[in-house]
């Protein structure tokens, strides 16, 4: 009846995951109960769960990412403390548990923390910056989100029911094959990623279409913000790379479920093919993460320097250059597998060429600051921290691209330090910069700057204290994924990293405090103008939070920095542009399709993991039924009457009039 699922699946004998899991379950139940008791459920359902509004979906993505970041962070704390304790000792986490932790940490951080945050910020900002009302396929957008949430849910279920993969975050066969990983851990991994991967692919399609086909009148390609450009590049990479991930994992699933032999040791299977294919996705993936991060920094640095971005065209070129070249470098992750001189040299060189494009970006940010009038608000601090940190991480990356050097450093803690250096210094800092930057747009009040700055400094210092020692440990030959070790030379460095993690805990605590404090002081932090940072692009041209339709009338774009120009003109002429003629606006209706699809996907995924075949069939049939039901709807849009639009826009204009009065006679 329940396949492989029995009471034994719950790790009664392992107190740590059990307690941790129960606590999480209790918290979730408590939150749910609170929501129900307070009567928020209908509101949540109507306004959030079924919402197809890109801004709401963006917020939900980011929230999911933040929660998963916390989960991944707890894993990281456990790993660092285990290694600090496990010098010639067993530590407190047995290998079969420790191995799950780093696998889950990598998987969660990449797929369910970094990706959702990056996609969330794109969702929130891109349509606003393009000056339009929504993405190309709003309902699909909601489905994408819920499928991602499904993946995250499955991974977290594995904490209490069964186990997670013990193979590393990229489940190399044959270790991940049935003979060497007979448990359900790898299956959790496979189905979580297959399902959420489809969601991500649909996001990619959605955004490529949005950016190429839906822009405000006059918004030609070379007038889009760099964030839109990087979003375009990242989504092109998603469209090009995620199908490969899906295919590769599907092959592994066939090996495990139907006795295929793609990657097995027996019957001619070739595990090298897995490694090849997974990196053909994996490398573009890291640029999917970092390109939008670059976009965020571009926006932030230009805004807070009070200057347009330096060499905009060069920046666009560098973005597309990285986008293309990142598809030709994947072998650098397996130089040590023995492909020979020619192959290694080719991929080594193509990898290092990416440094040129990235360097151009760094220098353009640098010269954006040059001659600027820099305000060190929290987002700008994150950006400065990024510039310095990322340059170091990039350098060690290029070092790893030199095959003879990689022959010494592959899979060492030096590598671990490299990628945390670029991911934390690049993606995570961008996430925090972006969240603080756009938070007032999303919620109408700023985040507390004091706590934000403390969090920044602690994160920066904590990062260096954790990961600089790991560079050294790597140079001393320490390899990654060690549950314990007995080489004395490594020990001091591991201990320093252990101290660093304490600083990071403080940093994370400050982040949380920042949110709590800001929400409690929201009335003081309120921003009425819709433009708290003196921004330059179109998202600041509307109210905070923006109405469902974003813009009462689509802006007419006349240059690279449309909003900056509108503002300047307003100040010069001391008046806002004439009131437009308001028309009714058609907006897509909310739809539970995404949520219901995801529900059945969770069910199917769970059933597949535990071999509960009847439930698999049920889930698939139900999913098809939902699809047809959705296709059968007749009314998909609703109309917002012109008066409503006008009422909203007049309120906004009033706030702007006030702002204008304050800026009377002041040069732009």
């Amino acid at each position, binding site marked *: 009846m329940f396949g492989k699922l029995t009471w034994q699946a719950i790790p009664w004998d392992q107190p740590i995951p059990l307690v941790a899991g129960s606590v999480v379950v209790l918290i979730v139940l408590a939150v749910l109960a609170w929501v129900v008791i307070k009567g928020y459920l209908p509101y949540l359902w109507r306004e959030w769960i079924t919402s197809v509004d890109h801004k709401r979906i963006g917020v939900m993505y980011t929230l999911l990412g933040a929660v998963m970041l916390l989960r991944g962070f707890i894993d990281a704390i456990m790993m660092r403390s285990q290694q600090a304790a496990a010098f010639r000792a067993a530590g407190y986490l047995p290998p079969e548990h420790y191995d799950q932790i780093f696998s889950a940490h990598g998987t969660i951080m990449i797929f369910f923390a970094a990706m959702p945050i990056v996609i969330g910020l794109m969702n929130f900002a891109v349509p606003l910056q393009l000056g*339009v*009302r*929504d993405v190309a396929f709003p309902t699909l957008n909601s489905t994408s989100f819920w499928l991602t949430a499904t993946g995250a849910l499955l991974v977290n279920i594995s904490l209490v029911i069964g186990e997670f993969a013990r193979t590393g975050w990229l489940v190399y066969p044959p270790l991940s094959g049935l003979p060497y990983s007979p448990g359900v851990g790898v299956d959790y991994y496979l189905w979580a990623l297959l399902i959420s991967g489809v969601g991500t692919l649909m996001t990619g399609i959605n955004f*490529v279409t949005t950016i*190429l*086909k*839906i822009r405000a009148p006059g918004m030609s390609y070379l007038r889009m913000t760099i964030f839109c450009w990087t979003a375009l590049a990242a989504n*092109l990479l998603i469209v*090009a790379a995620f199908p*490969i991930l899906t295919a590769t994992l599907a092959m592994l699933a066939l090996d495990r479920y139907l006795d295929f032999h793609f990657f097995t040791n027996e019957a001619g299977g*070739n595990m*090298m*093919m897995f490694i*090849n*294919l997974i990196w*053909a996705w994996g490398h573009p993936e890291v640029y999917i993460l970092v390109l939008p991060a670059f976009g965020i920094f571009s926006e932030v640095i230009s805004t807070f320097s009070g200057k347009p971005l330096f060499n905009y065209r060069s920046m666009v070129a560098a973005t597309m250059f990285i986008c293309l070249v990142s*598809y*030709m470098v*994947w*072998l650098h992750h397996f130089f040590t*597998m*023995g*492909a*020979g001189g*020619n*192959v290694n040299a080719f991929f080594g060189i193509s990898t290092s060429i990416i440094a040129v494009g990235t360097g151009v970006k760094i220098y353009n940010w640098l010269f954006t600051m040059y001659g600027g009038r820099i305000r060190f608000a929290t987002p700008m601090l994150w950006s400065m921290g990024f510039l310095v940190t990322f340059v170091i991480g990039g350098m060690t990356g290029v070092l790893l691209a030199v095959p003879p050097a990689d022959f010494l450093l592959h899979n060492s803690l030096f590598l671990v330090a490299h990628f945390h250096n670029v991911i934390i210094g690049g993606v995570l800092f961008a996430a925090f910069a972006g969240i603080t930057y756009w938070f007032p747009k999303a919620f109408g009040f700023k985040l507390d700057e004091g706590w934000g700055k403390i969090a920044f400094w602690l994160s920066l210092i904590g990062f260096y204290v954790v990961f600089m020692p790991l560079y050294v440990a790597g140079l001393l030959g320490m390899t990654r994924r060690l549950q314990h070790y007995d080489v004395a030379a490594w020990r001091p460095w591991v201990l320093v990293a252990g101290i660093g993690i304490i600083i990071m805990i403080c940093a994370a605590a400050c982040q949380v405090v920042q949110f709590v404090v800001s929400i409690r002081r929201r009335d003081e932090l309120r921003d009425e103008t819709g433009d708290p940072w003196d921004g330059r692009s179109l998202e600041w041209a509307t109210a905070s939070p923006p109405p469902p339709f974003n813009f009462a009338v*689509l802006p007419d774009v006349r240059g690279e920095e449309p909003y900056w120009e509108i503002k300047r003109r307003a100040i010069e002429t001391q008046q806002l542009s004439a009131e437009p003629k308001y028309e009714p*606006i*058609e*907006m897509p209706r909310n739809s539970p399709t995404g949520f219901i699809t995801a529900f059945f996907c969770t069910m199917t995924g769970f059933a597949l993991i535990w071999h509960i075949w009847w439930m698999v069939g049920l889930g698939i049939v139900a999913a098809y039924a939902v699809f047809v039901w959705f296709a059968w709807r007749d009314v998909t*849009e609703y109309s917002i009457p012109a008066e409503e639009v006008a009422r909203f826009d007049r309120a906004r204009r009033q706030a702007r009039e006030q702002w204008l009065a304050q800026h009377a006679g002041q040069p732009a």
Partner: protein
Amino acid sequence: MSHETNARDPGDVGPGFMDAAELTAREGIARYVIGFVLACALTAASFYVLNTSLIWGPGIPVALVVLAIAQMGVHLVFFLHITTAPDNTNNVLALAFGVLIVALVIGGSLWIMDHLNENMMPMHQMMQMQR
């Protein structure tokens, strides 16, 4: 934001829009017929090439690949209405991007795997060691 219309946008077409060329039904059918005939001919040629002795043996796969590419082109032009007209630029660019990625994935993988397999061939190794 854009209404549920079926109106044509001047200057912008999606892929597969057969009304873009403003064909009458008769012309439309003619177009599919031409495509169909061409595709049939190319398919027949493929099957013929496989079993012919006219072509130098090792060249046969090459001929097959070329024929396949030709046939895909026929499908794209006659069935999917992809053209080089300016209003089609975005469609063609997307296609080009896709083709590039496919070429990189297949070509790259084959190149890499070839070298790996060659380097690790057990037999080769055995012979070396028996020396």
